[in-house]
């Protein structure tokens, strides 16, 4: 299908080192990453029409943490800029909508997260309903153990299926220079490991990661000026579900199915899907909710089990799905992001390359 001036593509990107702990601030992680993404598209900061980032005050441990990150953009003279308290993939969504206003044709979206500052088991309790759930100390390990247990009891998957997800992602991650966790693991040995919250084992959890990633978007013809093979975003949608896990069927992800429909995922075959499944068993729920079969290669990067810089993991999925088109000649790929407890909120994007 010929592209129009309302078509928008990923034309450049950069990913910072993804590490257990960096001494750099968010701003220091962002500066080379944002400027690197801009450079990868052959642009300079003055060429960019709109800049937007995603980050979270509670991860960096201070209010207004994103304010100093403006220094990473070289925001002088003043720039068109925005910020979301969401994963960078949602920043990308705002940039996408901003480009559709029609007055600019390039944008940068970034995500940054300094996860090493906090203890996830205490931090994520305050992401819950403050009146009913936070006081219970409902931490992510407990909540996700409940979801995993529900999946087992539904008969849709076994612990062995889940261990195979871990082994496959870690093996795939051997080829990913950004992976923190990779290697060959024996499924029986994984199954012999102790539980931390039954049925969750330590290897079912994502690593703690500091990192940043940025993409450059271009609209219409401009994309071809900046990139030999742009990754066109032919569909993008996101949906949310009720907050209380008890109000949802945890063995499926309705909002993922809705977002995939909105993004037009079913309009053609999907060669590669990069799924944001920070807890191993979630990959199985997402595969089913997206209707993916064996024809689709899932998480060749190793996914969130290889590196999980919260607020960045989703936009990295977007980059990995775009790389399959820009660099590996694929025609149609899918990128997914999740947010909130037990897959509460999900974003799906479909990327396509020209024939």
């Amino acid at each position: 299908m010929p592209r129009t001036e309302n078509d928008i593509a990923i034309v450049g990107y950069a990913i910072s080192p993804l590490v257990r702990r960096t001494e750099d601030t968010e701003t220091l992680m962002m500066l080379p990453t944002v400027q690197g993404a801009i450079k990868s598209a052959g642009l300079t900061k003055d060429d960019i029409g709109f800049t937007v980032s995603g980050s979270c005050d509670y991860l960096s441990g201070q209010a207004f943490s994103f304010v100093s990150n403006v220094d990473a953009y070289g925001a002088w003279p003043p720039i068109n800029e925005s910020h979301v308290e969401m994963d960078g993939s949602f920043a990308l969504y705002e940039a996408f909508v901003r480009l559709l206003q029609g007055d600019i044709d390039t944008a940068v979206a970034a995500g940054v997260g300094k996860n090493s500052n906090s203890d996830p088991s205490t931090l994520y309790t305050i992401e819950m309903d403050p009146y009913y759930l936070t006081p219970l100390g409902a931490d992510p390990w407990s909540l996700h153990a409940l979801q995993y247990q529900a999946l087992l009891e539904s008969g849709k998957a076994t612990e062995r299926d889940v261990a195979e997800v871990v082994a496959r992602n870690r093996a795939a991650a051997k080829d990913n220079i950004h992976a923190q966790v990779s290697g060959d693991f024996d499924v029986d040995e994984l199954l012999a490991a102790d539980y931390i919250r039954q049925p969750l084992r330590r290897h079912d959890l994502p690593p703690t990661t500091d990192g940043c990633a940025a993409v450059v978007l271009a609209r219409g013809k401009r994309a071809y000026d900046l990139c030999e093979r742009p990754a066109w975003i032919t569909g993008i949608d996101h949906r949310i579900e009720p907050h209380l896990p008890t109000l949802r069927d945890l063995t499926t992800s309705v909002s993922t199915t809705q977002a995939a429909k909105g993004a037009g995922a079913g309009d053609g075959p999907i060669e590669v899907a990069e799924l944001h499944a920070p807890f191993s068993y979630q990959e199985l729920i997402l595969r089913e909710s997206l209707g993916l079969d064996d024809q689709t290669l899932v998480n060749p990067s190793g996914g969130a089990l290889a590196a999980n810089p919260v607020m960045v993991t989703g936009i990295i999925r977007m980059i990995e799905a775009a790389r399959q088109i820009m660099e590996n000649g694929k025609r149609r790929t899918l990128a997914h992001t999740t947010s909130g407890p037990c897959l509460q909120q999900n974003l799906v994007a479909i990327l396509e390359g020209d024939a």
Partner: protein
Amino acid sequence: MSHQPVAVVGVGQTHHKRRRGDVSIAGLVREAAERALEDAGMDWGDIDAVVLGKAPDLFEGVMKPEMFLADALGANGKPMFRVHTAGSVGGSTGIVGSHLVGAGRHKRVLSVAFEKQSEGNAQFALGGGKGGSIGAGGAFAPFIRAYIRRSGAPEDVGWKVAVKDRLNGAKNPYAHLKLADITIEKVKESPMMWDPLHFLESCPSSDGACAVVFTDEDGAKKAPNPPAWVLATAMKSEPSTFAGRDPVSPKGAHMCSQEIYDQVGITNPREQIDCAELYVPFSWYEPMWLEAHDIAARGEGWKMTDSGATALDGDFPVNMSGGVLSSNPIGASGLLRFAEAALQVRGMAGDHQVPDAKLAIAQAYGANAQFYAMWAVGSTQKPLG
């Protein structure tokens, strides 16, 4: 721009108070949203997407509260988006919502912004979550002193803004402060907070929320009340501090309004714009913004205040709602400005209505006076003919 026309057809806000102990955070946002839906003649099921804005999560101590507010805002099964651009966030929340309609992504979008400051310690959070916060007044007072020295403005200009905005607020049923008996003398005699700012020249700390419903041209035709057309939007950011920046009259503020004027075709803001809601948390910001936004010449903004031009019955009314000086739920304050501008051009501003307002602008700013969000709204799509 190639986007399609966007209309505001619903505006709602809470009664703002020091402490809204009668509602949870969810109850607070729902109160504003229900009023906006009622104004728009819509029900929850009519809304296609929800955009939520608020200032730092540390204010209430809830990380990413949009997750648990999805239920209260009827967002289940829909897209829900969370914006955070410091003090300008309320404005950004409106702009992002309007763009979703303008881009043709959705037909009806609900933007909601809130702050429930009584649930936490805003002063602590304003200091970045570290001890020893100087607060917003402490941060802005040096810029204000520099403005006074540059412009030679007499000291009573700030007091006049404080009185004017509180008298406007007394006409607004939703305002937190209703100080109908305020006088210049009372402002002057109130305790000095951050020289030259007295207590009564400072914004309150409020619980409150604001909601706006956006729709397209077709939706506007079906709306029960007159629409406000979103004529222009702009967001600008600049670094917090560096040697080349003028924090008294920031370049970002100037560029932001210029972009609005260019989109609407405004060449003489003072003459062509009927009224303005500007983010004035401390009295002196009224003349400072009048200058930064080229409504008055440099050094002349205080003369507009001094002459009464910015009063409700003046030739360029500013902060008809009572402004941030009368209600300040921080995350919502920007959207309250945007919403009041819309109410004015819809002719629905009640006792604080500017007669026959056809073109209004609204502004919000944030952090170290470095983030700007503005829009212009009109009673028609071409209020300048």
